């Protein structure tokens, strides 16, 4: 039985789990093979029991059940290359593309980007919705190449990837001079310049393969820095605050009208890298049951509170949490 302060335990549990990695899954072919064998035995035992009770089961029927149960729902994966791979959602300044990396053309909001194209930001960044899922944010002075719908090469600058909806999480592989980074359901940033490459993980888990240091995995609230000499150091970072400020300035718009307040709060918590807490059960109940009126397009606390006020709630930051309470 749990003793002590439940809220303190909850915080401790959240902290413990957020630094963990997903549990490994068995290979799919092993799963299918074992399922088949065990099911066959179970079927045979069942038949034996039924025969003992005086019933007869046709072996053809048992075989057809086994065949049906072989079919597992596989995750949808699109291997079909598409000519266009992403859509520009917004760009505060000039963003340009080039087929070969030489002649550049300005890219406008809602323009589609093709596989193989180079993209550059200037004094402002930009946000792309990827066809493969999730969104990719480019910081100012960044140059990337879209290799395909889920692979990019970071030539210089910084990108931030949010895998987005977790019923269909986005996947991405980012190549840079210091190696290749792959996500496992995450929010993370990659920065690359002549002297170093840095990977910062806000949530989830990434694997990073480097030419010199081999495979490294980084968990939430960790950052890895690879120097030009090939030395890799791993540090702890916060999931909120300065390292992520530029990503919050280009948050993609979120359509939350008609949804519950809790949906908005979870979106906001995710965008600001914080965990969500309620100061009272009353506040939590309102969030779970009340619907949003109005809209919010940026991850700004002031904007959030303008919406929360309509249901007598308010919020404040307290280090790594957003605390939601009743409006006094």
């Amino acid at each position, binding site marked *: 039985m749990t003793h002590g302060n439940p809220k303190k*335990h909850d915080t401790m549990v959240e902290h413990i789990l957020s630094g963990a990695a997903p549990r490994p899954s068995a290979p799919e072919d092993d799963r299918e093979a074992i399922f088949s064998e065990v099911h066959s035995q179970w079927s045979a035992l069942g038949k034996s029991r039924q025969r003992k009770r005086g019933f007869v089961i046709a072996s053809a029927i048992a075989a057809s059940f086994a065949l049906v149960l072989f079919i597992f729902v596989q995750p949808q994966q699109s291997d079909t290359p598409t000519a266009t791979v992403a859509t520009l959602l917004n760009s505060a300044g000039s963003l340009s593309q080039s087929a070969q990396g030489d002649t550049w053309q300005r890219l406008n909001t809602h323009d589609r980007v093709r596989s193989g194209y180079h993209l550059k930001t200037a004094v402002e960044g930009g946000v792309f919705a990827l066809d493969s899922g999730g969104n990719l944010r480019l910081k100012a002075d960044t140059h990337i190449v879209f290799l395909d719908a889920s692979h990019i090469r970071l030539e210089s600058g910084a990108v931030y990837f949010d895998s987005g909806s977790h019923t269909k999480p986005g996947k991405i592989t980012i190549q840079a001079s210091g190696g290749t980074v792959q996500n496992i359901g995450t929010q993370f940033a990659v920065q690359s310049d002549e002297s170093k490459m840095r990977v910062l993980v806000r949530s989830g888990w990434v694997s990073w393969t480097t030419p010199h240091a081999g495979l490294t995995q980084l968990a939430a609230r960790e950052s890895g820095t690879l120097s030009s000499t090939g030395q890799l150091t791993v540090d702890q970072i916060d999931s909120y605050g300065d390292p992520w400020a530029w990503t919050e300035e280009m948050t993609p718009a979120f359509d939350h009208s008609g949804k519950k307040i809790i949906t908005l709060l979870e979106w906001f918590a995710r965008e600001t890298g914080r965990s969500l807490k309620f100061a009272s059960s009353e506040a939590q109940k309102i969030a779970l049951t009340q619907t949003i009126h109005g809209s919010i397009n940026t991850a700004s606390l002031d904007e959030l509170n303008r919406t929360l006020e309509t249901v007598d709630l308010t919020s404040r930051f307290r280090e790594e949490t957003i605390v939601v309470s009743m409006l006094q």
Partner: protein
Amino acid sequence: MSGHSIDKKLVKRLLRHDEVAFREFFDLYFERLHRFASRRLNQDKESTKDVVQSTLMKAIKNLSGYRGEASLYTWLCTICRHEISDLLRKKHRSDERLLFVEDLPENQGALDSLFLSESEPESAAQRSERITLIQVALDKLPTHYGDALEWKYIYGYSTADIAQRLGMGNEAVQSLLARARRAFHDAYSVLLDSVTDISIQGRTKA
């Protein structure tokens, strides 16, 4: 309804040759059992596959022997331990001590890492051990508790996403997560206590 009575009901349905029950049984226990065996077999893929298959075959054959005194998962793990011992004996590795991750004194590293000051970096080995203990604790929970916690805090899924996956409402998911957090806290605490006890005994003997 207690957890074990739910397990007994599932077993009864399996014995009645309920196809849906078989799929439920497999989905609930296969992955956890696979991880249980894999940790004990040093991630040997082929040995793990053989052991998991033989465990499930034996379990299916002896379902009528399940009395509900322990959880079905615990019962399966007991069978699995015997299968692992048999496998190692056949491979002439009977002199190998079966070190279960929960018992390894080296996992004192995981315990130590919890008390590192912020200025002390955690080594890769300590981090790996800590993560293993967390995964063991998650696997000790009922499957939907472990899954919900993993989705929420490791993958970062929203409540709405979890609700959709589980076919529940948002409030029900919040309530489930609260229960799951308490259960994880208890399971993880027990694991850490056992690691500490073993370590203390080891030091005392030394």
